[in-house]
């Protein structure tokens, strides 16, 4: 038995890793700039950078030394000059006969690279310029990039030169600011000697302390510490939000689950008892009908008719158990259709088994067979269904909680989605998935405890 549990436990690990990878892909890779959608279009660059810093989004994705920084967004000069518009003396126009345009720099001028905010003192930066000489020029060119105050000569000056023969080949020149360098102003200057140059792109990268300091390891460490980050809309810790939400969610979902289970199992027994008679047919039709009504309609109609028009229940809020009765009722009724059909099929499957025929043959009454034999044997699929449903209790009911103002995890999730609150959604998705995997594990182990055949590989 122990060996089986260990084996089954090891099988669980790949799925958990899979869930972690999927959530990572979903929120880090595919998401693009979450900062903008969370903080809005008008947010300052510093705020965006801080948002990324807290969530580890300003690191390399998987592995690497260099990472982007919002101090200087990567710009391709093909379509517009970008930040380069503000730089004195630089021109932006297409080369002769070409549609794509470039930024042109003239010799003899000193251009300061416009940074959105001061660079961090504890980090090294690299500025990379890709350029070429203008196609018609013949003389040699020197591109200097400098750092320090005004780029003037002095102790704070640092110079990188790139010499090249006049040709139309793309060249690059890198300049570094080391973290230890004690410069008054950490900024970059470009100076061109000889002839005009045409700039294709300018990029600024920050150097990480270790190539392993990536978004992925950041995420894994967060999970290992059970720390799910900070909500961007309320600035509370996500773990606190989850802790506050789980109570109301369970207060709603557990009654729905228990009452729904009891109702659908007993109705399915009634159906099995009256198989193919009027009562059975009636319930089958009702079940198909209930399944065809949209979940939203149940909620809207219930809230409007039962609570608002007929004033049987409170309309909105979460103050006492009375506020939960209507949501629970709606939850039970909306789920009744599919679960009634499901359990009815299970009961009818059991009705055809040999042991049922034997029981009837030895003279047991219909009621006796149904409750003593069929129900007992049907318990196995019913239990599976119960255990599998348990993780979904935790996420609560997104819609019910939103409509009735129950401050649970579903309410939290909907608000988080509306405000693009990545950490909250990611945490809820992750925990929900892991609970599901664990519930599966528990089901399998309890099967093995009951039925020795399961343990065979």
């Amino acid at each position, binding site marked *: 038995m122990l060996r089986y549990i260990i084996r089954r436990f090891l099988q669980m690990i790949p799925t958990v890793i899979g869930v972690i990878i999927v959530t990572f892909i979903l929120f880090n890779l595919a998401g693009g700039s979450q900062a903008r959608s969370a903080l809005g279009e008008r947010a300052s660059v510093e705020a965006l950078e801080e948002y990324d810093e807290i969530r580890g989004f300003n690191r390399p994705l998987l592995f690497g030394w260099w990472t982007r920084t919002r101090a200087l967004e990567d710009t391709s000069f093909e379509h517009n000059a970008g930040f380069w518009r503000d730089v004195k003396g630089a021109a932006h126009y297409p080369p002769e006969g070409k549609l794509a345009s470039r930024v042109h720099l003239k010799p003899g001028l000193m251009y300061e690279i416009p940074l959105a905010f001061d660079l961090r003192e504890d980090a090294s930066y690299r500025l990379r310029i890709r350029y070429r000489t203008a196609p018609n020029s013949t003389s040699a060119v020197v591109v200097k990039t400098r750092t320090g105050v005004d780029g003037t000569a002095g102790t704070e000056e640092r110079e990188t030169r790139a010499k090249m023969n006049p040709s139309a080949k793309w060249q690059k020149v890198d300049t570094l600011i080391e973290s230890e360098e004690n410069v008054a102003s950490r900024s970059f200057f470009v100076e061109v000697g000889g002839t005009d140059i045409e700039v294709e792109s300018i990029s600024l990268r920050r150097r990480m302390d270790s190539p392993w300091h990536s978004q992925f390891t950041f995420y894994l460490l967060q999970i290992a510490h059970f720390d799910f980050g900070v909500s961007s809309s309320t600035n509370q810790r996500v773990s606190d939000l989850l802790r506050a939400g789980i109570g109301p969610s369970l207060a709603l979902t557990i009654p729905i689950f228990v009452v729904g289970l009891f109702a659908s199992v007993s109705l399915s027994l009634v159906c099995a008892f009256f198989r193919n008679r009027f009562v059975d047919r009636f319930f089958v039709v009702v079940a198909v009908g209930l399944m*065809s009504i949209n979940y939203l309609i149940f909620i809207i109609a219930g809230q409007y008719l039962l609570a608002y028009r007929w004033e049987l229940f409170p309309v909105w809020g979460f103050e006492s158990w009375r506020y939960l009765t209507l949501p629970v009722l709606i939850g039970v009724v909306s789920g009744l259709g599919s679960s009634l059909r499901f359990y009815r099929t299970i009961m009818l499957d059991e009705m055809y088994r040999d042991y049922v025929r034997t029981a009837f043959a030895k003279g047991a009454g219909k009621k006796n067979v149904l409750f003593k034999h069929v129900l007992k044997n049907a318990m196995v699929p019913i239990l599976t269904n119960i255990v599998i449903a348990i993780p979904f209790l935790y996420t609560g009911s997104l819609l019910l909680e939103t409509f009735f103002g129950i401050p649970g995890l579903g309410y939290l999730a909907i608000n988080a989605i509306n405000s693009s609150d990545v950490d909250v*959604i990611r945490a809820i998705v992750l925990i929900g998935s892991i609970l599901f995997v664990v519930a599966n594990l528990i089901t399998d182990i309890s099967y093995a405890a009951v039925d020795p055949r399961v343990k065979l590989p």
Partner: protein
Amino acid sequence: MTELATQELPQHQSWWGETFRRLAAGKLNLFCLAVVVAYTMLACYGEYVYFASRAADKTPTYNIPDIGVKYLPPSLFRSRTAAVEGVKPTAWEHFLTHPLGTDGLGRDVLQRLIQGTRIAFRVGIITSLIAIPIGVLLGCLAGYFGGRVDDFVVWIYSTFASIPGLLFILAIAMIAGQGEKGVYLGIGLTTWVGLCRLIRGEVIKHKERPYVQAARVLGLSSGRIMFRHILPNVFHIVIVTFTIRFPAAVGTEVILSFLGIGMKGEPSWGVMISNARLQLWQGIWWEMTFVTLAIFFLVLSFNVLGDALRDALDPRLREDSTS
């Protein structure tokens, strides 16, 4: 010898013919099929209106507000004097102007319902076009090759199956940019798991059948065996899955659009419900009622048809009937 001669050979019937005959055995099934066809035609008409107004670069009529006729009840529920123009129309004209009433901006509910049908069909079809190929392809590969490939596919789908459904869809829709594309991707990328599982199981069974072994002995390529020989034999699963997932996708779209993550600017049923819900509290019942009925009949017909198709296409039941 004489026995053979007198024995009537069963008339040849095509696969679809046989399926239809079994389906048509129930009157209710035929009725539901007719309802689905009617909805399909409405959706096509809606597509036509949509593209015609786009081609003419005009705001489509179902989106033009007309405050003068806002909150007009359905024509059967309003007196003839309260007509639009002030001139008393004939009974027939009265009946045909805004037959299902108007909403808070004076837009015709019937036209918007037809557009909602169009969007529902788009959602049902496009999400199926995303989910079904993924499920079929992965299921075939896993079932046919087994081993590492199978392990990999099982790993992927058990991962997807572990993630809470609606939240997963919402998260994808949010990331893909809230709107039409987000709805398609969200629903399409998450709902292939069940089909993949079923196809995988069936392919594993078929792999050992003599016809597959014969094809292998003939030296046919794996791709050809999988997709030309095995797939047609398990294709009934795809059809049943389509009829079951179609209404589910429509229902999910309604919820997404209602939450404001789905369709924008176009009158999807979810958007209509979200508008009508606020009006309901003021006693404007018609928009909500008609949207509810529209969704109900479409989903009900698909549910009944799905059940009937499952029985009609089940190979075991077919063999029973011919033997």
